[in-house]
C-alpha cells in the first residue's frame, strides 16, 4: 500500500515537489521513523529535514506528535510551524 506524502512551505521548496506517493519499507512505524528514512533519500530531503524537531506532521489532516504510529495513514503531511492568522 502506498502512502501519499504532502509538503508545504519551505519543506516543499527544499524537497522540490508538493507531494509524492511512496512505498514505506518495513520497520517504519512512527512519524519519527518516517522522518529518519526520508532524510536518507537524498540531499534535498536532507536539506528539508535537517532539524527534524521543527518539522510538524499531520496524518489524515490531523496534527500528530513524532511518536505517533503511522499505520493506516493515507496521507501524511510535513510542514514548518504554522504562521497563519
Amino acid at each position, binding site marked *: 500500500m502506498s502512502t501519499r506524502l504532502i509538503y508545504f512551505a519551505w519543506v516543499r521548496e527544499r524537497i522540490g515537489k508538493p507531494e509524492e506517493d511512496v512505498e514505506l519499507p518495513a520497520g517504519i512505524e512512527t512519524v519519527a521513523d518516517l522522518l529518519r528514512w526520508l532524510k536518507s533519500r537524498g540531499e534535498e530531503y536532507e536539506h528539508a529535514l535537517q532539524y527534524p524537531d521543527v518539522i510538524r506532521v499531520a496524518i489524515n489532516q*490531523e496534527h500528530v506528535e513524532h511518536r505517533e504510529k503511522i499505520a493506516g495513514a493515507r496521507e501524511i503531511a510535513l*510542514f514548518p510551524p*504554522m*504562521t*497563519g*492568522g
Partner: protein
Amino acid sequence: MPAAVVPTVRIQAEDFDVAAEIAKMTQGRADIGAVVTFSGLCRDEAGRLAALELEHYPGMAEAEIGRIAAEAVQRWPLQGLTAIHRHGRIAPGENIVLVVAASTHRQAAFEAANFLMDYLKSRAPFWKKEHHTDGSEGGWVDAKEADDEAASRWKQAVPKRN
C-alpha cells in the same frame, strides 16, 4: 441554554466584509447582547513588504479551524461563531483573517474570539511568505514562540460561563 451553535468556517482567496458577517449572525434575532470581531490585516513593515503569499493545506485548513471553533463553542456560551481565513497573495492594508463571536455576555464573546485567534495562529495550517518591495523574496515568516505561549495559556484557563 440553547443548543450549541454550528460555527461557520471559510477558507477563501477573496476578501471578506466584516459588517456582512456580523449581519448574517445577528439579523432576525434579538437575543444577542455582544458581538466581538477580530480582523487581522497585512502590515507593510514600514514599506519593506510588497505582499504576503499565504500557502495553506486545503482540506486540513477547514478541518482544523473547524475543530478549534467546535472547542470554543464547547467552552463558552456562544450564539454565533465565524472564522474566515484568506489564502493567496495579500497586499499590505488588506484583510487576512476574521473572527466573529456573539454571546449574551461580553466576556464570553471577547474570550472566545481571543482563544480562536491564538489557536488559529499556532495550529491552522497556513504559511506566510514575504515578497519585498525591492523585488526580492523575503522568505518564509518564522513562527513566533509568543504565539505558542499565547495558545498554551488556554490550557489552564477555566472559562467563565457568565
